[in-house]
C-alpha cells in the first residue's frame, strides 16, 4: 500500500495501519539508533520510544508526505536526549580517543591483514562513536540510509550547506581515527 495513504489511515486512528507502518519502519529506525550508539539495548529503547512518539503525535502531522523526515527527526532527537540523559558518557570525544589511539599505536594489535569483516564492522562502529554527534548522525543518514542532502537537511532542520560541511568533516575525522588505528595501509589506500 502507498505509504502516504497508510499514514493518512493512521492519522484517522486505524491501529492496523499503524502496525503496518511500524513493520515498514522498524528496521530503519533500529538500524539508525544502533549505528548511533553501537548498542542493542539503546537501539531497542530508542526504537520503542520513537514509535510511541509517532503514535502519540502522528495525528498532528500537517505534511504526511514528509513522514520520513519527521520520524527520523524524532529518532535523532531521542538519541541526542539519551546522550544528554546519560551525561554524554556513551561517546568519547574525538580528541580524547585519538590520544588513546596514539597511546596504543606501538602495542601489538591484530595486523591489518588479519582483520576479519566482523572485526572491521566493530572497528567502524567504534570509529563512528568517536565522531561528534551531529557528524555521526549525518554520516549514518547519508552513508547507511542513503538519503539525499535535502532530506537530511529536512530531518536536522539545518541548511544543506551545514549538512555537507558536517559530512565533510565527519569523513575527514573518520579517516583520521582509522589512520590512527593503523588501518590505513590495507583498507584506506585501496580505495
Amino acid at each position, binding site marked *: 500500500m502507498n505509504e502516504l495513504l497508510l499514514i493518512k489511515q493512521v492519522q484517522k486512528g486505524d491501529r492496523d495501519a499503524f502496525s503496518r507502518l*511500524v513493520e515498514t519502519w*522498524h*528496521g530503519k529506525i*533500529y*538500524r539508525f539508533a*544502533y*549505528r548511533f550508539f553501537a548498542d*542493542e539495548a539503546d*537501539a*531497542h529503547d530508542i*526504537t*520503542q*520510544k520513537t*514509535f*510511541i512518539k509517532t*503514535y*502519540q503525535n502522528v495525528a498532528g502531522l500537517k505534511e504526511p508526505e514528509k513522514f520520513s523526515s519527521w520520524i527520523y527527526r524524532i529518532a535523532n532527537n531521542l538519541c541526542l536526549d539519551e546522550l544528554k540523559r*546519560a*551525561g554524554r*558518557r556513551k561517546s568519547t570525544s574525538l580528541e580524547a580517543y585519538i590520544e588513546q589511539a596514539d597511546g596504543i599505536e606501538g602495542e601489538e594489535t591484530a595486523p591489518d591483514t588479519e582483520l576479519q*569483516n*566482523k572485526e*572491521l*564492522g*566493530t572497528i*567502524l*562502529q567504534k570509529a563512528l562513536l568517536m565522531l561528534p554527534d551531529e557528524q555521526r548522525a549525518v*554520516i549514518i543518514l*547519508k*552513508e*547507511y540510509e542513503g538519503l*539525499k*542532502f535535502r532530506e537530511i537537511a529536512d530531518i536536522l532542520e539545518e541548511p544543506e*550547506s551545514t549538512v*555537507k*560541511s558536517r*559530512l*565533510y568533516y565527519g*569523513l*575527514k575525522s*573518520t*579517516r583520521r581515527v*582509522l589512520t590512527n588505528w593503523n*588501518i590505513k595501509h590495507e*583498507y*584506506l*589506500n*585501496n*580505495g
Partner: protein
Amino acid sequence: MDKKDAQSRLMDYLYDEMEPEERREFEEILQNDSALKQELDDMQSTRKLLQQDDTEIKPGNLLLIKPDSDTSKNDRSRFSKRSKIFTLSAVAAIAAAILLSFAVFSFMTLQVSHTDRGTLISFGSATLPQETNEPDQTEAYITKAEFYDMMDEVQDRNSQVMATALQQTREQHQQQMEDVIQTLTTYYNQRRQQDLILVSEGLAQLEEETYYKFLQTEQTIEDLIFALNVQQSND
C-alpha cells in the same frame, strides 16, 4: 571557489548529487587542482571502507509500552481494561466450576427422573422400582421439598467450587503482580547500580584530570623558578 564552496561541491560530487554540466565543470577543476583531487581520493577511500561494514543489524521484537507520563490521560481505558480482565477471570472461573460439576456428576452418574409418583434422584445406576401396592417401596422416592433441598445443596456446592476457583484466580493474579514488582525492583536496582558506577567513574576521571593539571602547574612553576634562577645567575 572558496573553501566552503569547494567542500560543498566535493560532497555533491562524491555522492553523485550534481547536475551533469556542473559535474563536468568540477572535473575540470579537479584536473587542475591536485590537492583537491587528493582530498577527493581520500574521501572516496574512506567511503569505500565505511561501505564494507556489512554488520547484520537485526531488530528484535518490538513491544510498545506507553510512558508513565500519559497515565492520567488513559486512566479510564486502563480501568476498563482492568474490569475486562476481572470479568474474563470471573467468566473463566464460572466455566471451570460448571465443567467441574459436570465432571463430578458424570463420575457419580447422577440420575434424575420424573414419574407420576414424584421425582427420583439417584447416584450411580438405578433402576426404577416396579410399581407395587406395598407402602414400603415408596421410600425410593423423594418429595418435591426434598428435591428442592437437594438442588439447594447442589447450588451451595457449586457456589463453593466457584468461590474456590475465584480465590485461586485471585491468588494467581496476586502472585503475578508480585513477580512483576520483583522484576521491576531488580531492574531499577540494576539501573541504580549502573548510574552509581557511572558517577563513580566520572568522579575518578575528574580527580585524575585535576591531579594531572596540578602536576602540570607544579612543573610549570618549577620551570619558571629554574628559568628565573638561571637568568639571575647570568645577570
